[in-house]
């Protein structure tokens, strides 16, 4: 009945207007927070248009002259075209493998019971805890033995392997909240387990898969350490390496570095915007399609 009071045009209770004010103030704060949060991205982009001298002297002002040359120089001298291609191949491949493998694994872990299930989960969790620098040398030696150093696999395989724990973790948690009745109908119909996986579980997990996609893509796209150590051929260099070329230990060419970073950030933003729609669609969409 208090709901009726809320919607009544005659409602003039103090609580009503106070709530309104609180709401508005709240929204203003959040919008300010949003703008502050976006500011660094904005700062990055306008700084990329500045000359080194101007960046040094006036780091926060708008560029005096919009130096487009920075982007062109950065692109050509660090061979960004090649780096873009390599990063794309490696990131997409690891994304694909991660989705497929973590999807399968999470399906099994969330839906079936078997003896070593708890141990398996624990096994995967350990992977989330290691600082990656401690694995640089052992992985390097391992990949040397497998003769995959200096190939795309030298990055795709570790990226996938390291993305698996988090992916499995998130997916399993998500799948456990979905009622079992959804597949039961399919089982009764005689659909094979593979069929259930591809036609029901994957589509239903779209929101969680989108979350995992964003994370895995970003992780592969921005990784520096693995790309630094496992690849030593220029033709296979990825973006983070290309961007780092402008910063020596002693001096940093900010205008070029920032221009390079701006270019490399664009795909990440695109991927995020694409996938966030999926994340928002929710379970209802999946159930209808299934």
């Amino acid at each position: 009945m208090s709901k009726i009071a809320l919607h009544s045009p005659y409602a003039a209770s103090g609580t009503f207007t106070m709530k309104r004010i609180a709401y508005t103030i709240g929204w203003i704060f959040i919008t300010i927070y949003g703008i502050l949060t976006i500011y660094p991205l904005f700062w990055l982009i306008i700084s990329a248009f500045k000359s080194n001298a101007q960046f040094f002297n006036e780091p926060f002002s708008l560029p005096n002259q919009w130096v487009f040359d920075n982007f062109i120089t950065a692109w050509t001298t660090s061979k960004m075209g090649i780096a873009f291609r390599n990063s794309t191949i490696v990131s997409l491949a690891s994304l694909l493998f991660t989705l497929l493998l973590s999807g399968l694994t999470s399906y099994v872990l969330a839906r079936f019971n078997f003896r070593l299930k708890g141990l398996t989960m624990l096994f995967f969790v350990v992977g989330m805890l290691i600082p990656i620098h401690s694995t640089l040398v052992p992985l390097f030696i391992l990949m040397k033995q497998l003769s995959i150093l200096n190939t795309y696999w030298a990055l795709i395989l570790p990226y996938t392997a390291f993305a698996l724990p988090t992916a499995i973790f998130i997916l399993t948690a998500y799948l456990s909240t979905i009622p079992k009745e959804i597949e039961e109908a399919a089982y009764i119909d005689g659909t094979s387990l593979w069929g259930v996986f591809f036609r029901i579980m994957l589509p239903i997990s779209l929101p969680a898969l989108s979350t995992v996609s964003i994370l895995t893509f970003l992780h592969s796209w921005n990784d520096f350490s693995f790309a630094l150590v496992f690849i030593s051929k220029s033709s296979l260099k990825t973006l983070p390496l290309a961007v780092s070329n402008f910063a020596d230990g002693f001096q940093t060419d900010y205008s070029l570095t920032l221009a390079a970073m701006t270019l490399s950030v664009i795909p990440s933003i695109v991927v995020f915007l694409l996938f966030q729609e999926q994340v928002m669609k929710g379970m209802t969409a999946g159930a209808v399609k299934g």
Partner: protein
Amino acid sequence: MIKAAKLGMIAMLIVVVLAACSSNTSNGGSSNDADETITLTIWNNWSGQDAKAVAMRKILDDFQAENPNIKLEIEALATDGLKTRLRTAAAADEMPDLFVMWPGAMTKEFVQGDLLQPINDFLDQNAEWKNNFIENALVDFTVDENIYSVPMNLAPSSLLYYNEELFKQYNVKVPTTWDELLQAVDTFNANNIIPIALGNKANWVAQSTTFSTIGDRVTGTEWFLKAVEQDGASFTDPEFVEALKLYQELGAAKAYQEGFNSIDENQMIQLYTQEKAAMVINGGWAVASLVNTASEEMLNATNITILPPVNGGKGEAKTTAGVVGTGLGVNKKLSGAKKEAAMKLFYALAGPDGQKATLESSTLVSYKLELDPSKANPLFIKLTELMKETKIVPVYDSKLSSAAVEAINNGLQELLLGGDAEDIAERIQAAQASAVN
């Protein structure tokens, strides 16, 4: 929709696998041509747009053009990245044929790990070249009588860059004694100018650019070398503690701006070029940075000198801390035709022509050469003139074990925050002692 997605995924998968495989096959091919083409891998840190990197890359390009039967696989990385990759490759014994290498501790470690081969024979075959290096140039690349490389540049690390205009404006004399330095600090502080800009975030800066020289001024070089060997001198000796205290005094006199431990080298030079600071102490490499970012007036107003001598100090006055620059390490596993090719490239980069190209890119060299003034910018010419009458004394991090370097770098940060000089000295001593024994 699902079917389309599945097809899409399979298509992507095929493309990706094909792409990955094609890089595989191109890999397999190159290792077979042993007879006609020799492939050399070289890792370096000439990745930037600075003049020296450009000059080095040109030498590589020219070499490739003149030697069509030698294929160069060049990997250029920023310094930190190069070091990380070298360490990892060293641990797995997968070193490239030639690589940029630092003198001192790094060379020693790599020799101990059996990764380098000496170049004594090659040097003797080119005696004229060998003898034209400055005094003691090869010492830090030598272990047990074996010489493993030659320096390709020279890095004095402790030069006082100052703004003549500001000095004139506030009537400050360019310090030639320690007291005059402290006076200058006071005058600038009174006028709200930062006396000396410092960016010690990468904590080697204070040690390398300033303390190494102060240490030498107080203790003398001989003492330092003995302390490094732990042979007749120790870091807890009173002269070293005195040096620490002297440096602490400089900090306490507010010579540096606030928050100096949180800004980096670039920002330190930024403070100087923005005319917020009157002086900045940095190495010879700062010339390139200044030329890139300072205005025409700033550059003209900038002059270079060395730190003043200390009252009663045992060190020579006309010296500055520094180290010979990087060289090229030669992989131990090289032999035969490959080794010949590698040494040919080595000579192209580090031989007389290479040294000349380096000098003309406004980088100091450890080789006796005259600079053609038309090829260098004025600030660099000022530097070369200064270097003609200045000797190099060892910069601490080129001689100490890496553990002791960590100890002193962190210790100096602490010292400038008010730490206890004796404690810090003890820690440095402990670190060096355990590394030597």
